[in-house]
């Protein structure tokens, strides 16, 4: 319990740390307002993007030299053979990395195959046309996913062990986690899926709930990367929900999709494609909802934090700070709420797939 309470002050502290890093960055060029505005914008865009190194903070020295503090991550490419090298070779996108006679350049957060000079060719719409190797790098987001993986495994396997040691009662962290696990079981799985089938989906629902929640919370800390604002991650989660729904669909479920009972035949023919489309739209909405909520939350929060530096007076900056503080607390709620919504809707779809009713 104590752990949870202490989370908010920690988050607040970390936000203050962000302000400090911001102000450090601002010191370099106290130029015109529009310059600062575009700088804030660029920073937000950079923050939302994945990156090949774990950059904790960067600053520019008085001489205009960019300094970065953080650590490099391995880059793994498949380009006619496995290529593994450290992202430090890119020097934060400034230089071309040479591996086994091939040249790669990190251009706007994507790796392109180039010549020795790192020339990027553009098409008419200013999109890079260079060849892109298959990229399985351990990026910042992947590192975060691995961290959450480790944290969750550690937390819950320890909790499971504490039951055995303590005569069927949880101990320590389990005391706090057990009500949440029971909440997922009693308030999400049981009412939406039904008493009969809910057990098979518990593993997925619990994992997805805690994964999304913890990942969202990490996204609110400046050191962490918000993993769920990547469409690839939410697509993966939604796809698993879709696959589980499709494979657990019973006769009744498919009958309701292809041959809706209780309506006239022409309507059945019209409804079938709509219902079929609906099965795809549902997980698609699930994917977009999580992605958009987290992205929008971060953009708004960071914009308001950026306003603190744009105003440059006590009143405006103070108000922006207050607003950012309130919003940060709201985002803490959103982090849990989105995890909850994702889990509830997944459970709802599973419930639809296994529902048995012949009262039509």
């Amino acid at each position, binding site marked *: 319990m104590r752990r949870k309470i202490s989370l908010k002050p920690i988050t607040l502290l970390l936000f203050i740390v962000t302000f400090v890093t911001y102000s450090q960055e601002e010191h370099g060029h106290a130029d015109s307002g529009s310059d600062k505005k575009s700088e804030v914008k660029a920073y937000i865009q950079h923050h939302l993007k994945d990156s090949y190194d774990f950059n904790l903070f960067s600053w520019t020295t008085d001489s205009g030299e960019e300094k970065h503090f953080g650590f490099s991550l391995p880059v793994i490419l498949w380009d006619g053979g496995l290529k593994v090298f450290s992202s430090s070779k890119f020097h934060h996108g400034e230089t071309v990395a040479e591996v086994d006679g091939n040249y790669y350049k990190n251009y706007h957060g994507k790796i392109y195959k180039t010549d020795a000079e790192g020339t990027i060719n553009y098409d008419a719409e200013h999109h890079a046309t260079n060849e892109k190797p298959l990229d399985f790098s351990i990026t910042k987001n992947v590192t975060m996913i691995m961290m959450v993986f480790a944290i969750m495994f550690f937390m819950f396997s320890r909790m499971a062990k504490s039951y055995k040691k303590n005569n069927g009662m949880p101990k320590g962290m389990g005391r706090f986690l057990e009500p949440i696990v029971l909440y997922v079981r009693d308030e999400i799985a049981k009412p939406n899926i039904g008493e009969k089938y809910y057990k098979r989906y518990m*593993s*997925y629902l619990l994992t997805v709930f805690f994964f999304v929640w913890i990942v969202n919370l990490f996204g609110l800390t400046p050191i962490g990367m918000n993993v769920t604002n*990547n469409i690839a991650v939410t697509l993966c989660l939604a796809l698993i929900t879709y696959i589980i729904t499709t494979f657990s669909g019973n006769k009744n479920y498919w009958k309701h999709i292809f041959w809706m009972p209780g309506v006239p035949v022409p309507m059945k023919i019209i409804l079938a494609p709509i219902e079929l489309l609906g099965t795809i739209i549902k997980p698609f909405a699930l994917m977009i909802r999580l992605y958009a909520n987290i992205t929008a939350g971060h953009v708004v929060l960071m914009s308001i934090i950026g306003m603190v530096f744009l105003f440059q007076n006590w009143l405006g900056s103070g108000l922006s700070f207050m607003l950012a503080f309130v919003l940060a607390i709201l985002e803490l709620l959103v982090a849990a709420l989105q995890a909850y919504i994702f889990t509830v809707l997944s459970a709802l779809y599973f419930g639809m797939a296994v529902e048995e009713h012949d009262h039509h």
Partner: protein
Amino acid sequence: MEKLFEDFSLGLFVWQAVLFIALILLLRKFAWKPILDSVNDREEGIKNALDSAEKAKLEMENLQADNQKLIKEARAEREAMLKEAREIKNKMIEDAKDEAKETANKLIAQAQESIETEKKAAISELKSQVANLSIDIAEKVVREELSNKDKQVKLVESMLGEATLN
């Protein structure tokens, strides 16, 4: 929509899929199953304990009801016995009273009877004595009369006037 496709990173997707599915499988084996089983066991245990408590309570109530019934019966029995005893007592008193009355009546009747006979005897004796007396008187009167006729008559008349039979 275009931006979404542009942002999509296959590498991240593959990593997420692999790690997430591994996480589901690992947690299912090492966490969710033991946790949910333990919770289930505990809930079952609590439910069983509650059930048995309920049962014990019911049994207790039954026992109490039995006790109550026994007490009631005993009380009713005692009541009945007391009532019977009272009735017997009353009856005995009544009987005794009746008997006494009867005996008294009998005695009284006897006494009256004997009184009557005594009285009769007394009267008859009195009569005979009166007769004797009368004879004596008559004798004397006769004796005297024998001397004096007038005087004799006068005496008888006066004597008869005096000696009234009660």
